[in-house]
């Protein structure tokens, strides 16, 4: 069994993102953004882009691997992978796939990327405009259940009801993200701090989500470079290793029309134990957490399902003080995340985890050795990853 792991076999040697824009404000089309992010990540790693031989993405990214490889003049394409599933559930899964390719000798240098221009291709927060609908969506759309916020609010309402969780827990998640964004010049919400009164006064989108519980809609692209761990020290950054990356979901998570048995869940109840098994550590070893915020309620359930607190401890544990770098008990979303940095479908959260291991975050947790990422709660499949410093090997 010892060989059946990704632990310590792959290193992240470069990360980058384009400028991040509010949706519709990118001067460049999506494919050009993808190219720019890949080139910047290669420059960050000191890698010749022609040596990239693999691409891994998720959520049906439109910037297809063969087109990227051709546009960048790569010498050959050895690996091209798309993680099934929508939303940001594949953020860490794409890393798992890319890392598996490197670890098993299928590819030498894999780019994990996500490019998304909602201005060019349509906003995620808008309902569909067709006259008729059939299939699973026919059982929800006619009732006005058609946006991501509306798909997930009922899960969160049930979870909050079952465990008597208060709105302040959601608010703390939002305030922490916005606070960290104020340190991050890349963040779209840099210079736009959020306080309790503004959160409380903000309009409902769908209860229990206020405006500030919801991710942004953005244009941009992000990328990271994976190579074999043996080569980690050949690159300019200090080594950052993939300690684990897994994806999946629990029994019948994909049952149609909101019939998944474990309904009030972010989807990590089987993924998180496998993640910790592979990483050979537990929640108490994690120095900093990046947890995908499509909506704060998904973060709340992700935190519970990754074992950082029990459901009945949420009201006490999820406070702004506990979630802030550098000294909170569990610094959360230290770049500002999807709420306040940019909604790059969560790949920005993985990049931020790597920067924490490098000591290069704008809200650095001193001496961070272990950073965990939970990707895309409430969709299926979801995924998680753990990154570690050399000392964790």
């Amino acid at each position, binding site marked *: 069994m010892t060989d059946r792991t990704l632990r310590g076999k792959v290193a992240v040697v470069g990360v980058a993102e384009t400028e991040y824009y509010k949706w519709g404000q990118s001067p460049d089309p999506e494919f050009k953004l993808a190219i720019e992010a890949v080139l910047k990540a290669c420059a960050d790693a000191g890698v010749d882009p022609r040596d990239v031989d693999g691409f891994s993405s998720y959520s049906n990214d439109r910037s297809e691997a063969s087109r990227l490889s051709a546009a960048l003049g790569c010498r050959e394409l050895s690996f091209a992978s798309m993680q099934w599933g929508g939303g940001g559930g594949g953020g860490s899964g794409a890393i798992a796939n890319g890392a598996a390719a490197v670890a098993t000798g299928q590819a030498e240098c894999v780019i994990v990327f996500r490019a998304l221009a909602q201005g060019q291709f349509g906003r995620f927060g808008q309902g569909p405009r*067709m006259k008729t609908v*059939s299939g699973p969506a026919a059982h929800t759309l006619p*009732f006005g259940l058609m946006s991501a916020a509306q798909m997930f609010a009922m899960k969160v309402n049930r979870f909050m009801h079952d465990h008597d969780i208060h709105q302040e827990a959601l608010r703390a998640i939002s305030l922490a993200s916005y606070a960290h964004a104020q340190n991050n010049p890349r963040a779209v919400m840099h210079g736009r701090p959020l306080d309790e009164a503004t959160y409380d006064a903000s309009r409902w989108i769908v209860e229990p989500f206020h405006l500030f519980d919801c991710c942004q809609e953005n244009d941009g692209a992000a990328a990271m470079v994976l190579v074999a761990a043996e080569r980690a020290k050949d690159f300019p950054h200090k080594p950052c290793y993939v300690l684990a990356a897994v994806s999946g979901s629990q029994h019948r998570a994909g049952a149609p*029309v909101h*019939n998944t048995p474990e*309904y009030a869940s972010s989807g990590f109840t089987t993924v998180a134990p496998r993640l910790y098994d592979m990483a050979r550590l537990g929640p108490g070893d994690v120095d900093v957490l990046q947890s995908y915020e499509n909506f704060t309620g998904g973060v709340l359930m992700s935190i519970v399902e990754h074992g950082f607190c029990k459901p009945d401890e949420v009201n006490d544990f999820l406070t702004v003080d506990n979630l802030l770098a550098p000294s909170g008990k569990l610094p959360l979303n230290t770049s500002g995340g999807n709420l306040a940095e940019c909604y790059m479908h969560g790949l920005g959260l993985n990049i931020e985890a790597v920067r924490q291991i490098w000591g290069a975050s704008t809200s650095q947790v001193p001496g961070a050795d272990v950073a965990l990422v939970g990707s895309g709660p409430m969709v299926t499949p979801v995924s998680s990853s753990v990154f570690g410093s050399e000392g964790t090997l």
Partner: protein
Amino acid sequence: MTDSYLRPGLPAPTPQPDGLDAPFWEGLGAQRLLLQRCNACEGWQWGPEWCCHRCHSFDLRYEETPAEGVIYSHERVWHPVHPALKEQGPYVIVLVELPHADGVRIVGNLIGDPEQPLIIGTPVVGYYEHHTDDDMRHTLLQWVVA
């Protein structure tokens, strides 16, 4: 048409071209709630599948079950994401658990004051909302507090 809970103009449901859920929609038109039940193991399932997820039998039927359930979860929507709902104001979506059908769940609106209190576990009964005024005839199963 009768007054509908939501303003007209949302996508109208039509049966899947492959027929999988056609009996469900036909049933609603006749004010009957028909859901999938397995002839081999007698288990209910919803949404529709081609085989029973418990025993893998393809021998499934549509069987009537009472339109009576309890609120499993709920949400009150304030921000419209479709042009038809621009002037709607808040509205309520409920996920209803059907105890007479192995606890499978179905989505609908909760008729009544959109700002009424929403309490998980509240018993609700079905209300058949017929849409007849255009070429997209269909019936939605809505819910009211019992």
